[in-house]
């Protein structure tokens, strides 16, 4: 990855963080932690890897993205607004009655959302369905999905894991947002994922482990995943929950936390100064 591209991606990620903090802060409460931990992943997918057209959001042969941890919707809304799927003005309607931007990703309401999610554990199965459907139709595309670490407590994730490798879905590229926190505490204390790499290897996946906030590392992993011939890929991203917001980063209570608009503005100012 050349320097210019890297700088552009970094600038974009800062913009997406800003929009996300502003969006949730304007409403006053939301899933800030798990939204900010996936900003680099969303950025590299939507600005560097995915074959998509915001002017034609339902283009049949496009790559698709499933946000299985649907509560991180605001981060994805920031990306979609920034890419022009809808007006940035919509971002201040988050969770207001009648909005097109509900807390959890909703394909019925929001242009650019490829799958509804929010009841945890379901998105990987849906992504598998998309991958199988594209294979039947001979569409040369990739289906991307991000699941959470807490979400990985769900049994359905492992039913899905088994079936994706059984069907040799090399057009499926999954990510785990391994920020080590879930609602009630550290994943290690609430429901230990133990050796997460070994689990996915055991289920027959091509497993890569990266720093989820490093664009060069994410880029290498995604390129490798795209070359995989017969297995689905799981990219386990070591991330920091609440990354980039001084009031949330590393704060165990950041899953769905209240913060006022002044705090949001201060966080954005610090981000712009490169202090976060």
């Amino acid at each position, binding site marked *: 990855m050349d320097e210019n591209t890297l700088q552009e991606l970094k600038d974009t990620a800062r913009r997406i963080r800003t929009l996300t903090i502003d969006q949730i802060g304007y409403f006053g409460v939301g899933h800030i932690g798990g939204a900010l931990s996936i900003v680099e992943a969303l950025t590299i997918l939507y600005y560097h890897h995915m074959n998509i057209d915001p002017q034609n959001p339902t283009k049949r042969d496009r790559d698709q993205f499933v946000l299985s941890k649907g509560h991180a919707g605001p981060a994805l809304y920031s990306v979609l607004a920034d890419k022009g799927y809808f007006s940035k003005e919509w971002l201040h309607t988050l969770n207001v009655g009648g909005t097109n931007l509900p807390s959890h990703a909703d394909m019925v309401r929001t242009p650019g959302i490829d799958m509804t999610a929010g009841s945890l554990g379901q998105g990987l199965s849906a992504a598998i*369905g*998309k991958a199988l*459907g594209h294979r039947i139709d001979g569409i040369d595309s990739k289906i991307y999905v991000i699941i959470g670490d807490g979400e990985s407590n769900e049994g359905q994730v492992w039913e899905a894991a088994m079936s994706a490798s059984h069907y040799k879905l090399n057009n499926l590229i999954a990510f785990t947002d391994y920020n080590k926190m879930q609602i009630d505490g550290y994943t290690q204390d609430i429901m230990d994922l133990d050796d997460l790499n070994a689990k996915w290897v055991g289920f027959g996946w091509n497993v890569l482990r990266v720093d989820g906030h490093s664009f060069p590392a994410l880029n290498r992993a995604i390129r490798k995943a795209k070359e995989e011939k017969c297995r689905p890929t799981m990219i386990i991203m070591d991330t920091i929950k609440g990354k980039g917001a001084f009031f949330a980063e590393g704060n165990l209570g950041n899953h769905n936390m209240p913060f006022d608009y002044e705090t949001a503005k201060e966080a954005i100012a610090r981000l712009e100064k490169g202090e976060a």
Partner: protein
Amino acid sequence: MGKVKDMRATYNDTLIDLAARDERIVLMEADLMNASGTVSFKNTYPERFFDMGVAEANMAGVAAGLSSVGKIPFAASFAPFASRKTYDQFFISANYAHLNVKMVGTDPGITAQVNGGTHMSFEDGGLMRNIPGLVVFEPCDNVSLEKLIQKAAEYEGCTYMRLHRKGGNIIYKAEDKFELGKGVVLRDGSDVTLVATGLVMVPEALAAADELEKEGISAAVIDMHTIKPIDRELIVKYAEKTGAFVTCENHQVVNFLGSAVAEVLVEEHPALLKRVGVQDQFGEVGKLDYLKERYGLTAANIAENARAVLKKKQ
């Protein structure tokens, strides 16, 4: 008349015909391909058949994903597993997302027979009836099964079908037409209306009407194949005509046919009603004849309830 095909054979054959005309049709199983009788679909369209193993929740989620890229998946398991084990996945990933998944619950109610209480679903239809906008239906013979599967495939949205698996029945003629949401009057009558659904109960209701006729009681029989949306117009018409009803279902009387008919009557045209069906009980093992007696799913019990409701009417 020759031997009637198993309902599952009609299910399989109808889907093979549909798949030939519509490349969007795909079929899914959860390790019950042999039970559902879909081996020949698999052999005919191997690239459009997915056995998901014993993992019904994942099957429902994968079906939703397939539907989101334009496929029309029919996904089957035994009724308790197609409903109870997939409920949140079918609810959120398929229905809430406004997708197009056709869920099929086989061996409904007492037809689970010797698989017993763990496999005997008296609540699947009720669970499904609670899902907003979902179309819920239960065909009573091979002809209506074929036609209603075709209608379900044409319908853009999720459906749930209770599929009587083993054995078949012919009530309709090949040229008869069906609409989801429109009940069929199998026999007219003026004293009492028997509203039945499914292959276990529609024949029992017809037999009960014969029995009642011998006593000078004129019983209408309606095949209410679609429980949701319920045919309000037809219920009101027969409320005006007979003022007395017996519902007949191979299901709990709560939240399926009996409840649906009661709701319409209370809101539109109050009439007397008795509900023949399972009365707040679990399933148990047994052959079909034993289980019919055990839960009162018989022509004799329907006739008895018809007499009781008529007594109140006087």
